């Protein structure tokens, strides 16, 4: 079961503030370099992209490679304009796709 956490800062956000969003998702980010005890290669299985859309517009994305640590953690800035969802989408190997949203509330 994939679990993801999105953090929108709780402090009051005014229009024009730059807020740092955080997102972390459970995923082994299997590099493809490890082997089982029997010497068999464990195939690569990683998240390739994370996209963030704010109020429906893509504001940030990141392409990931095997060197991103397991349970990928990302933090980045976004200019708060109006109250609306920040939608995250993660896409990866073997058809992996996970979507999760959080609300960004602008109070003034």
């Amino acid at each position: 079961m994939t679990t993801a956490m999105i953090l929108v800062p709780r402090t009051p956000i005014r229009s024009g503030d730059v807020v740092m969003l955080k997102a972390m998702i459970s995923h082994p980010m299997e590099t493809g370099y490890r082997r089982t005890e029997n010497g068999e290669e464990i195939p690569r299985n990683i998240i390739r992209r994370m996209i963030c859309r704010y109020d429906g517009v893509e504001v940030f994305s990141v392409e990931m490679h095997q060197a991103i640590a397991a349970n990928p953690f990302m933090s980045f800035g976004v200019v708060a304009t109006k109250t609306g969802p920040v939608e995250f989408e993660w896409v990866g190997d073997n058809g992996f796709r996970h979507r999760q949203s959080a609300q960004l509330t602008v109070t003034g």
Partner: protein
Amino acid sequence: MGPEAQAMQRDDFSNPAMLGVAAGEAAWNSAPANGKPACSGCHGDINATMRGVDARYPARQANGAVMDLTGRIQTCQSQHQAITPEPRESAGLLALQAAVALRSRGMQIEAPASRGLSEAVSRGEALYRQRLGQLNLSCAQCHDDHWGRSLGGTRIPQGHPTGYPIFRLEWQAMGSLQRRLRNCFTGVRAEPFPAGASEWIDLEIYLRQRAAGMASDAPGVRP
């Protein structure tokens, strides 16, 4: 553990073990397919009923058996949910453990000796002081005689299991105290106790006695 690992643990939003907690909380509320209750069906709100529970584990049960928290959850699964218990070290069971252990965070770990487990504490201490493996080292030789010194790039701790289940950076996954102790056995090139051996519980009880009075920091991050 160094400042980086400490910082990762301190921020609930950075701590990968909190993903396990989120999964465990979801599992807490999920009833098995056979119609038996979810954990919440008997235990209600995890914040209320699980508060302080992990701090007093391992514990003697009503039937006299002494169990660690993993064993207790497995017992609930088989006896009250009529499902095959999830194996130790499975992601699902670790997640439930993490969710329960979080509800003791910040609370003092209770001394097993004060809860009728003095004999287990003594047995555990004997294991702790026993030389093991090809390197012929006991736990005490590193964790009592050389704590604070470096082994590889890590500082040797004093052997206080206050953070389990942990996210160990080396495993890139969650794991139990038993898994971590097995790694110690590998470290001294010793044959680990067999799976399910009472020695694991005795050793954990002794280690928790050492940690008595310390605050739980579960679920933790360790290198």
